């Protein structure tokens, strides 16, 4: 039989998991719209940070400014109406993006920083280390999540930790971060155990790779997509957690956040002041919806197997 090289176009493409997944994702219009929405929110939050840094007095930064009388309804001048002090609800809503995204980002960061290394170490080294890590997260996960967050938030609030005063959102994202790494850790551990037995890891071992090298060069890249997917879906939960903590008086107090705005609206509703509530709810709704849909799409695109875990 004559051996023949196949031309490039004919060859089934050896695309990586990522390329493949992202390409598939790119074809989903809805997912891309959602992605754009998410990027928009992040840009907004980043912009507010930036503007504050250089003290650029754009609208959202000047949320404290009185732009009208107290509790003025939406008008052409103040599109979303005003609050009790005559501050613009629109500006507060925009500014709230910074708080919510900061909370969710920091909490995600903490949970990744704790969950991924612990999960990898437990899964790779097994033995006593594994038992201890499993024990820790089993303990944490045996306490209902909401109780655990509340317990952490109550206890951490107004404490000083390593010279840092834990006020407002700091204690919020610490509480969320310190309690939410469990799921990620469990996921990573399971995946690492699976991959550990795969040929490529065994091969790496056989030519004398160190444990650290195997973890960083081989294992982590192969579980990385899980972290991203987990992140996108968890982000939503964190934004919602901020609302509940704010309602319980454990959240941000000095700056407008969506949770605080909804909480304030509780009383305002009875005088028919609905705009603050609607603005904050809508702000949360759109980013949650976008993250939910995008997260699902990402998961389907990159790792359809995970659908089971949902």
């Amino acid at each position, binding site marked *: 039989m004559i051996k023949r090289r196949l031309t490039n176009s004919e060859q089934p493409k050896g695309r990586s998991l990522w390329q493949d997944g992202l390409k598939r994702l790119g074809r989903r219009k809805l997912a891309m719209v959602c992605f754009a929405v998410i990027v928009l929110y992040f840009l907004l939050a980043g912009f507010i940070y930036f503007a504050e840094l250089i003290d650029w007095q754009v609208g959202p930064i000047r949320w404290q400014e009185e732009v009208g009388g107290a509790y003025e309804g939406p008008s052409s001048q103040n599109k979303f109406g005003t609050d009790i002090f005559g501050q613009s609800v629109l500006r507060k809503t925009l500014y709230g993006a910074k708080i919510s995204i900061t909370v969710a980002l920091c909490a995600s960061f903490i949970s990744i920083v704790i969950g991924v290394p612990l999960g990898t170490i437990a899964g790779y080294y097994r033995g006593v280390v594994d038992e201890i890590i499993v024990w820790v997260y089993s*303990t944490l996960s*045996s306490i209902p999540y909401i109780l655990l967050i509340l317990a952490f938030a109550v206890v951490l609030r107004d404490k000083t930790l390593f010279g840092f005063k834990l006020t407002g959102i700091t204690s919020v994202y610490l509480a969320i971060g310190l309690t939410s790494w469990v799921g990620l850790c469990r996921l990573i551990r399971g995946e690492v155990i699976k991959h550990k037995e795969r040929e490529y890891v065994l091969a790496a071992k056989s030519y004398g790779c160190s444990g650290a090298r195997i973890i960083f060069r081989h294992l982590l890249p192969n579980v990385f997509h899980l972290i991203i997917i987990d992140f996108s879906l968890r982000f939503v939960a964190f934004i919602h957690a901020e609302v509940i903590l704010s309602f319980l008086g454990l959240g941000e107090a000095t700056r407008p956040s969506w949770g605080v705005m909804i909480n304030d609206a509780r009383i305002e509703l009875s005088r028919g002041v609905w705009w603050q*509530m609607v603005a904050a*709810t809508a702000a949360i709704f759109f980013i949650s919806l976008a993250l*939910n849909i995008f997260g699902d799409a990402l998961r389907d695109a990159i790792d359809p197997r995970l659908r089971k875990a949902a």
Partner: protein
Amino acid sequence: MTTYIIRRLLYTIPIVLGVLLLTFVLFTVVGGDVSIEIAGKNATPETIEEIREEYGLNKPLFLSWDSQFINHFKSALTFDFGRARDRELVVDKIKRGVWPSLALTVPMFFGVLIISVSLALVVAFVRGSAWDVFAVVVCVAGMSIPYLSFILLGQYFFAYKLGLFPIFFSPDLSMAEYVALPVLIGIVTGLGANVRFYRTVMLDEIRSDYVRTAFAKGLDARRVLFKHVLKNAMIPIITRVVLAIPFLFLGSLLLERFFGIPGLGYLMIEAIGSRDYFVINAMTYISAILFVIFNVITDICYGLVDPRISFD
């Protein structure tokens, strides 16, 4: 089977110890001193000192037989949580709060379960169709609205504006009357995530080979769904259901708060507001114990539903 249960229970011991350690660290080591709050507005330093003594706050934290840590253990293992800030026994508070909480959460739970499993079956059956897409979108949209907004709007429209339901707990109402609206709101908020979850479960099952076999036999869709799929789907459903039961006892923080239902959720909110670590500690510990126990029950339930699992 008995040996299995015993062995399974033995596994829970380290977890319970872990929970005890965690609550101790949280509420005693990090949480700190509560004596001043107990002493009240006209307190003298000596009263505060006496309170510290009474509550054992001046004992060493760890290294002693009479340390706070050992006492924390003892009290937790004997379910003696002492007295709350208002000098009522914490246990009494919890006992009293359980019923109203259950009256709220049990109907809510079954409502969500029945509606979402039924919907999920239907949606899974018409998978891929416009109805399916619509259902998923509605679910995701429902999940994206903050819980608090749901409650606020629900209470505002149905109780305040339309006056269809009582606004708040009142002693002259029957329990059915005052839990009606919160249960309704609870069910609506719970549907999104649950329908989506059960749909995924059903889809996983519907894609299975045995379903194809069942269809190949000539069974109709209803029989396949209700006889074959549902029983297999029971396994993930049971996990979710049984593990949700401990949460029923906790009540619902926000709903109880908004509707004045004197359950454990409300108790918890108040404990948070007044930093009543005695109550928070007891609630955390009890719910963890319940959770661990129900974990064991889940495993036993697997055995009942899934013939592949044996306890030997």
